């Protein structure tokens, strides 16, 4: 709350000192999920991005934190009532609330991340998980001693398949004789919240010689990373930077840059360039990336650094096409 007030103050200060000429009203707002803006994941990245935007432009960003999925429509209503012109919604779970809400407020621009809602005033921003995962695959192929690496998905879903296919392609393009083991935690969304089941799949993959594990399974992934850490495999974080979980034992994290995406969304609103429809942010747009920081730098040999840089260039220039299932 204090932070919100501070932002408001900063905004007021900048607004009065800088001479703002824009005539169209612009008030950016973020609606977080109930996980809250300091969840060390999606929400926090969105928070960081909106903070950077406020710093950059001097426009205060209002924030709404609903207490649960039932409170999403209420939070959207409060945002609109508060005069927001650009509302960013963090995550696909807002899909149904927004689909019902957006048509009634044609003058408000909505940006939904990681999900799709049709409408003339809704921009749906997706991420090219396949491209980021390709880079993970390149690094995994070179970091693996056994030549066998694992992928654990949460459940059968298009987004999980994008992770899997991109990763497998990255591995194979780098090392044709490598084996990619794949597994799914469950057939329904509980596969994203069952770390125990994920750890059993991880154990089995290790038994088959896998020494890099890439779980794309929400919190289930933590179970797989824990097993990997205790038995000597390298882990890969997902969605947000998870390198801090096991310093020195993480290969990297495949991040969806929500901070970049939210900055783009608000910029579009500010400059009146808002476009409804689906956009997909890939490596070129800086929407996805692999993280190298103090926690995993030791794992990145010069060969990995060079190969990943090459692959990144090849994807951005269009030389390498990463398959994107639906």
């Amino acid at each position, binding site marked *: 709350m204090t932070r919100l007030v501070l932002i408001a103050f900063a905004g007021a200060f900048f607004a009065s000192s800088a001479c703002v000429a824009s005539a169209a009203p612009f008030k950016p707002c973020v609606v977080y999920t*109930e*996980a*809250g803006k*300091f*969840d*060390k*994941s999606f*929400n926090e990245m969105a928070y960081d991005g909106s903070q950077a935007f406020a710093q950059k432009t001097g426009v205060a960003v209002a924030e709404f934190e609903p*207490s*649960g999925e039932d409170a999403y429509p209420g939070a959207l209503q409060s945002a609109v009532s508060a005069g927001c012109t650009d509302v960013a919604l963090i995550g696909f779970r807002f899909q149904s609330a927004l689909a019902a809400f957006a048509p009634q407020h044609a003058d408000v621009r909505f940006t939904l991340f990681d999900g799709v809602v049709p409408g003339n005033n809704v921009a749906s921003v997706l991420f090219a998980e396949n491209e980021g995962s390709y880079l993970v695959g390149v690094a995994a192929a070179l970091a693996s001693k056994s030549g066998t690496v694992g992928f654990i998905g949460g459940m*059968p879903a298009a987004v999980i398949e994008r992770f899997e296919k991109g990763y497998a392609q990255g591995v194979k393009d780098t090392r044709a004789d490598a084996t990619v*083991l*794949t*597994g*799914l935690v*469950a*057939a*329904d969304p*509980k596969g994203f*919240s*069952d*770390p*125990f*089941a994920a*750890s*059993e*799949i991880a*154990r*089995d993959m290790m*038994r088959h010689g896998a020494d890099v594990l890439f779980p794309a399974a929400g*919190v*289930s992934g*933590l*179970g797989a990373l*824990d097993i990997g850490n*205790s038995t000597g495999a390298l882990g890969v974080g997902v969605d947000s930077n998870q390198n801090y*979980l096991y310093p020195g034992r993480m290969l990297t994290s495949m991040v969806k840059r929500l901070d970049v995406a939210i900055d783009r969304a608000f910029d579009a609103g500010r400059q009146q360039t808002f476009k409804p429809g689906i956009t997909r942010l890939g490596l070129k747009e800086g929407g996805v990336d692999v993280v190298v920081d103090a926690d995993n730098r030791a794992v990145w040999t010069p060969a990995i650094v060079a190969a990943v840089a090459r692959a990144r260039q090849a994807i951005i220039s269009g030389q390498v096409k990463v398959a994107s299932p639906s």
Partner: protein
Amino acid sequence: MDDTALWIVSLLASTVRLATPLVLAALAGFYSERAGVVDIGLEGKMLTGAFAAAATATATGSPWAGLAAAIAASLVLALVHGFACITHRGDQVVAGVAINTIAAGLTAVLANAWFDLGGRTPSLDGTQRFLGLHFPLTDALRGVPLLGRLYGEVVGGQNLLVYLAVLAVPLTSWVAYRTRFGLRLRAVGENPAAVDTAGISVPWLRYRAVLITGALCGVAGAYLSIAQGAGFQENMTAGKGYLALAALILGKWRPYPTLAGCLLFAATDALQARLQGVALPVVGAVPVQIIEVLPYILTVLLLAGFVGKSIPPKAAGQAYVKDR
């Protein structure tokens, strides 16, 4: 040949790990239901226990404090269940569902408020958890084909709570069929009026049963978050409480058959991890959905065809009213 042996050993070890929370929760249900109190709330009590264990282990650094907190937290919910169903004769199923709802919401909210990690607790390191015990002679026997590995990875190498679950089965059987308390416990689930006529307090007996249920659920929760897992995650029980209930029904509310039910479910679960993407003879690769519903299909099939009629304790689900 050696490959097959390895496969079997790893499957067995996985089965034991997966069966442990089911066994603890199913035995928890055994005490409550044999005393005539239906308990749908096993899931919620486990989840609360898991959260309390992880939060306490994070704060104190001690897995023992975590285990104690898990039991205490689960006991509180058990008391709520008892207060609603025994003292106030509320509907047992409704109270159980309420406990599950409270647990799912409260743990997530508290985790968020205390740790700011989006509904989970920080990852625990080795000293804050119950890790696998290294049995003597494991290394010496490693060379012995099959048996050496069986000893090292299935019999040994498990964490303390697994052995606790293993001991809990014969102990429960002994308590239920060889002690006065057990006799009365079973009687109060079949015919509470007779127990009352004998001058024994029905509520006090049922409260004791419900408290044992709470304690066992707490241990099951602690197993998930500070023994097998390295922290609490939102909804991490993922339906294990319901699966435990299914095992209890399959086992006809008896300890050893219930254990068999738990092992069966755990084995199908362990197989799931191993069958994915593997092309089987004749049918080819099996979709994950089919493997996943196996435990439930098995329950229905076994109940329908093999184990025969499973009859619940006669007074289960009914509140006892002294003078009608």
